[in-house]
């Protein structure tokens, strides 16, 4: 899909969001999740974020990252580079489709990461790489069947309550519960349930603001209720639909560190 067409869809979604509140009750779960994906997905995205990781004892560590994201045909390409602190600065991670590589400056070479990493923690946070993909360019509709449970009022905002059940059996979660803003079509709260049906993680978005004609969550807080750990992602800078050269997503660029 061209960037221009994608932009039109996003703008239309925003128009619906701003002006069609009366239509809200008529939407089905799959229509709502499609609008969520349209709002959150982007053909390309460049992002600077501060990541604050907290353990159960309340000890915090802060990391700053820059990420380049581009969706090409059916592939999701992502490059993440650590900017700070000094002990991890320069460490970079590249994902091209199903292939993943890590570059550690101290090691001086690119190393392949096995498939198990996809379900593992994203850079030490409470999000997995799979979670990041769903929140980014992949979206939820391709992996989950969404069912509208009802409409609610949460923190003075009208929201849809959805239940998302996995389409495939090998997904990490048994189900997701999602509360979607009727105004912005952004998830305001997502609950992730493990395969035993127990609540595992809670994601809450805040500081919602408009960037380039789309709504963006300026802050995401992910809490693992089973371990007591917490990750806060603060968006420092974001640009959408920017032309990103494919060479960015190459192992050469990973090694060069720029």
């Amino acid at each position, binding site marked *: 899909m061209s960037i221009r067409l994608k932009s039109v869809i996003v703008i239309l979604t925003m128009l619906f969001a701003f002006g069609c509140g009366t239509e809200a009750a008529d939407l089905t779960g799959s229509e709502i999740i499609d609008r969520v994906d349209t709002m959150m997905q982007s053909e390309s995205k460049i992002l600077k974020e501060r990541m604050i990781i907290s353990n159960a004892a309340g000890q915090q560590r802060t990391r700053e990252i820059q990420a380049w994201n581009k969706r090409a045909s059916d592939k999701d390409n992502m490059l993440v580079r650590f900017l700070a602190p000094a*002990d991890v*600065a320069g460490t970079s991670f590249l994902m091209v489709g199903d*292939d993943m590589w890590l570059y550690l400056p101290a090691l001086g*070479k690119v*190393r392949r990461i*096995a*498939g198990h*990493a996809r379900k593992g*923690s994203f850079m030490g946070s409470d999000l997995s790489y799979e979670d990041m993909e769903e929140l980014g360019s992949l979206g939820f509709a391709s992996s989950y069947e969404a069912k509208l449970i009802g409409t609610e009022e949460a923190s003075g905002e009208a929201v849809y309550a959805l239940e998302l059940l996995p389409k495939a059996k090998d997904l990490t979660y048994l189900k997701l519960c999602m509360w979607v803003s009727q105004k912005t079509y952004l998830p305001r709260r997502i609950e992730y349930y493990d395969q035993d049906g127990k609540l595992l993680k809670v994601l809450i978005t805040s500081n919602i603001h408009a960037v380039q004609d789309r709504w963006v969550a300026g802050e995401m807080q992910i809490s693992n209720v089973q371990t007591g750990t917490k990750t806060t992602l603060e968006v420092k800078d974001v640009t959408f639909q920017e032309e990103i050269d494919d060479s960015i997503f190459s192992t050469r660029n990973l090694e060069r560190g720029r």
Partner: protein
Amino acid sequence: MTAYSVPATWKGEDRMKTSTMRYRLFLGLIGLLLLLGSVSGSVWASGPSIGGQWEAKLSGVLDDDPVKLVGTSSLSIDLQHQTGPVAFDATLKIAGSMGDKDAFEFDMDTACLNYMARDYDIRFGKQRVSWGTAMGLNPTDVINPQDINDPLGDKLPVWALVGQYYLENNVELTGVYLPFFRPAIDAIPTKPQIPVYYPEEDGEWAVKIGALGMAGMDFSLMYFSGYERMPTVRMTARGMEGYYREVDTIGADFATSLGDVGLWLEAAHTTPKEGDAYTNWAIGSDYRLPNGLLVAGQYYHQETGKTQHDYLMFGLEKELAVIHRGKLGAVYDTDSGSFMVNPEVALSLADATELVLGGRYLDRKQGGLGMLPYSDKEIYAQVVTSF
């Protein structure tokens, strides 16, 4: 335990001063790279930036009675600057024993000029070139000599001219030229009275073609023409002497994922001009359990033409309380039954500061694990801070 002596100034550095033609050629290259940088203009510029790392380590060697305490400290300063397509980076190191100010040594660990074009890079200077997909010990990683005082640590830097040409789809060609021979050791450890002679001609070279992410696999092929890094003893008319055998090495490495399991294979076949050919290879796998524990294992076959050893290597790693890390490394020599275990906990004290607590236990049988010149029983605490 024997700590082999590697002179602070190795003979190659002296040779550099005397190899006038090569020296001039290298100065010319530096000038050319700087010139390219200046005429290209500041399309992008970064730096200069200064960073680094400070480490202080206190070890208790339990082999001795009473326990011997050894304190070491090091400071690394990383300098970087980029103007246009030309970048410079260097690491300066001051390291030594605590309590003995005369034992501190200053060293230019690495210093490189880079020219980065769209499709190729040229890198010249004192550097490390790291090859291979295996864990810790890489048969195809033949460019830099091993630091025999820390065989599992960083290799010794060498002067090299490295060119990398990038093709489509993560395929790259690499060429390396080493103008000055640098061995891992320039004496026979058990017979230091035997003279060891450097090769009469220095130049070594290597090429590699690698492809990453091709049908879900990474692989590369390499060729090296040069010398062994360890001396061999021979009898000549002058008597017993050590020399470095001229060798040709061909190698390959491979890495992929089978489902959630990582797999790698790496091998290098070396043919010396004199003596029998030999092959080193490694095969390994890693897997992360649902609880986050990373389990890695590797079988490593090592030959030198005269001796051969087989090792099982094993590693565990897990995040602890999100910000800390626990690790366990183990090596088992299948021939002698010797083994080493090395548990370690890295406690994050603050952003970019860690306290590493660890221990090492070596059980040597029949002279096994001679390649690991560590104390047999040792505990240590190390503070590492980066800036």
